[in-house]
């Protein structure tokens, strides 16, 4: 296996974080670059990436292409084993944010970048590390 594929998860980006990045938000960009420096990965839930593509223009779409192709980015699929939980959580969070919360919880206490802090902590432990968009 490529050693880079074994990088620990450094952050999970939800749709809002991806949209902020796609609009040129430097805060997201700095975090993405920092995690590359640290040898950690940026986890992009596929449901969030798809939702972000829905909401961006051509320029933003190009930036989403770029972030998903970075060497330390992992586009995480929504797996069969998580579908039941994703469905339940999506009643409150929406499917994309539910997928992001699941990805955060599936790794060892991985920070989640989101604009839905108050909703997400209904499902994750209250002290979960969250970066507000």
């Amino acid at each position, binding site marked *: 296996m490529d050693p880079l594929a074994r990088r620990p998860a450094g952050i999970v980006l939800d749709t809002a974080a991806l949209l902020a990045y796609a609009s040129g938000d430097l805060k997201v960009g700095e975090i993405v670059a920092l995690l590359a420096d640290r040898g950690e990965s940026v986890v992009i839930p596929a449901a969030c990436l798809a939702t972000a593509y829905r909401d961006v223009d051509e320029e933003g779409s190009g930036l989403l292409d770029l972030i998903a192709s970075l060497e330390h980015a992992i586009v995480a699929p929504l797996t069969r084993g998580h579908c039941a939980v994703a469905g339940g959580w999506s009643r409150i969070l929406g499917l994309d944010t539910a997928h992001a919360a699941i990805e955060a919880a599936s790794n060892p*206490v991985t920070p989640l970048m989101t604009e839905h802090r108050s909703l997400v902590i209904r499902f994750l432990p209250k002290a979960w*590390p969250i970066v507000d968009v």
Partner: protein
Amino acid sequence: MRTRKACYVPAVLASSGMTDYRRGMTRKIAISVPDDVAARLEREPNVSAFVAESVRIRMAAESVRETMAAAGFELTPQGRARAAAELDALHAGVTPQLRREAAELKARLRRGQAG
């Protein structure tokens, strides 16, 4: 800081006419490293693999910064410091209690029972 000669083996491939290196091929090189780095490397069962992986991470980081800069992100040392401070503060706030809760949640996720 002092440096210590970690190893020295002359490159041999060039003399054999193999000049077209591809990823996966290897070449022996001599490097000098500080004492603390040498001490760390001495704990590795496969020093070459450890060094290669470390350098590849550095190469990937350089590539990421170049790619993002080309896309118009004006990354700065100050911005990097702010990002590092925010993430480090979050990690510092991870308590053993949170780790236990996270492990329990992860186990429930595996069973599909985290409703």
